[in-house]
């Protein structure tokens, strides 16, 4: 008896103490940025820069909390009530979802900021092991026998859909738009995928940390990050002949920001992305800035020129692509058969 009494008293006291401690953190205004996986390092730096700038301009100390995860999952969380002031996601389609399912975002959110509300862009490249032992130069090399390709599952990962569409665009061009042959080609590609991770980070870890596969289809910024984290002498980046232009959008979740009294700072936060300082940080963190003038030329030199298709122009926008390729029973479900 004694034992239980003392134990529960101790636990209760600990809970009280700890919750008091936790309560202390809520002083100044706090902004919540709900983002997707590959932006962690960028926003870590950007948030510090913005907080300093805001402090200098207004004298107010601002804290920015970050939440990262798969883009679609994050959008879902905001729909379900995650109190994001701003979202910085991978796909316009995910922001559209929030606008459609809640009244927290205006439907014309993309028109609120320059460049379709995408302050930086990225593209899809290949990451191969040092010296490129399988001699991978372009998409056509990925369907060869004995090449293991690492890419996440397009059903669950936003990044994986970009990979898929880039591959599709290449095949369409190479096979003169013969849909049956294109399907066959993409199916061949996915036959070479030994592990379909659920997210882009998972695939990166599979390839870089666990050493599985010959080539990782990856965000450009993610590929550079791997080189930085694991050493440039372990991996090479290969730029294919054709890739896709990704425009990760940003938006103020007006409903939440208004309710929290954060609308002014949330808008300023996103506008800061377009300033020379914001653009420079994007380039430093391997995102292609929409206004390269302020960026460090050395950072810009890392981005090779590549022929890019665009989701709106070449695939008729996200919702069409989603229906055609990734919905249940759509083309991806038809061509993908797990190998083991």
């Amino acid at each position, binding site marked *: 008896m004694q034992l239980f009494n003392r134990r529960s008293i101790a636990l209760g006291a600990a809970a009280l103490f700890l919750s008091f401690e936790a309560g202390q953190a809520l002083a100044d205004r706090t902004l919540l940025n709900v983002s997707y996986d590959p932006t962690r390092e960028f926003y870590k730096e950007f948030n510090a820069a913005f907080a300093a700038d805001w402090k200098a301009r207004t004298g107010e100390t601002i804290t920015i909390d970050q939440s990262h995860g798969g883009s679609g999952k994050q959008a879902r969380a905001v729909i379900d009530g*995650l*109190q994001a002031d701003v979202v910085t996601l991978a796909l316009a389609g995910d922001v559209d979802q929030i606008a459609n399912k809640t009244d927290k975002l205006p439907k014309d959110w993309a028109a609120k900021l320059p460049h379709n509300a995408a302050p930086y862009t990225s593209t899809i490249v290949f990451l191969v092991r040092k010296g490129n032992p399988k001699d991978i130069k372009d998409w056509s090399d990925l369907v060869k026998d004995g090449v293991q390709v690492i890419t996440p599952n397009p059903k669950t990962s936003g990044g994986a859909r970009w990979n898929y569409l880039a591959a599709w665009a290449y095949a369409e061009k190479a096979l003169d738009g013969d849909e049956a042959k294109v399907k066959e080609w993409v199916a061949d590609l996915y036959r070479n995928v030994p592990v379909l991770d659920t997210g882009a*980070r998972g695939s990166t*870890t599979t390839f870089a940390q666990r050493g599985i596969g010959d080539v990782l289809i990856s965000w450009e910024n993610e590929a550079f990050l791997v080189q930085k984290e694991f050493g440039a002498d372990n991996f090479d980046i290969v730029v294919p002949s054709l890739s896709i232009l990704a425009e990760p959008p940003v938006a103020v979740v007006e409903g939440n920001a208004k309710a929290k009294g954060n609308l002014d700072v949330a808008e300023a936060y996103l506008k800061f992305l377009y300033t020379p300082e914001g653009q420079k940080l994007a380039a430093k963190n391997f995102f292609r800035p929409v206004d390269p003038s302020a960026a460090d030329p050395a950072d810009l030199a890392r981005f090779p020129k590549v022929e890019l298709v665009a989701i709106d122009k070449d695939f008729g926008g996200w919702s069409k692509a989603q229906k055609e390729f990734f919905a249940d029973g759509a083309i991806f479900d038809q061509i993908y058969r797990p190998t083991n």
Partner: protein
Amino acid sequence: MAMSDRFLPLAHTPERATSETALTRAVLIAIALLFLAAVLFLPLVTVFMEALRKGWGTLFESFSDPDTLAAVRLTLIVAAIAVPFNAIVGLAASWAIAKFEFKGKNLLLTLIDLPFSISPVISGLVFVLLFGAQGWLGPWLVAHDIQIIFAVPGIVLATVLVTFPFVARELIPLMQSQGTSEEEAALMLGASGWYTFLHVTLPNVKWALLYGVLLCNARAMGEFGAVSVVSGHIRGLTNTMPLHIEILYNEYNFVGAFAVASLLACLALLTLLAKSLLEWRFSDELAATARRH
């Protein structure tokens, strides 16, 4: 013929419950030990080795990261609420089930087991469906400015749900096998219901209760799936230790990830140690209650 004659007396030796040879036994024991070493010991050692890969300095540095401290604190808070709650409710539920007859008892039994049989992810989603902005109670909660999911209350609720069965499942079979006769004897001797519970029912199950509480605690601190669904993953605010480990790992901060993992492992080992110490300290009483784990 001669062989079987020779072995006959052995099979009749009273101490021997089975007829396996010494070799078979040694092989079985060796397999069990090897298996334990491979699936328990090796991973544990790996965790600590990875954490120490860059030396003690880096290890301590990872612990001074405010986000890591926040994750540790949140985990402790959640466990400090969920475990006592589940201990009390689990005890009450087991008591009701084992000692009383009432309508809907089987339903209650099934419900208690439910969190074990459904995926933790579903357990988390239940709360999203209930308390999410699009959920049943969502509009009401929004109108009253109450945040449940993507905040500490949601994490506590998800943890409570997932860890609920541990205490009850330990207690129910024991209480059922003990029956109600001791309680009836106490009542006939003039004891009140509460006195009977404290002095007869509880002491009879205290080891099982403690065991259930320890298991519940271990799971409460280690739960990933359900908590992940309702957390919102806000750094420094709604990340528990397991979630924080995943984040650190995904940020290529392997030392940090394994540092937190080793802390979690240490907490688990401490739990085990506490249990063994108590068993050793109270071994007399333990033998007297005739229940050994």
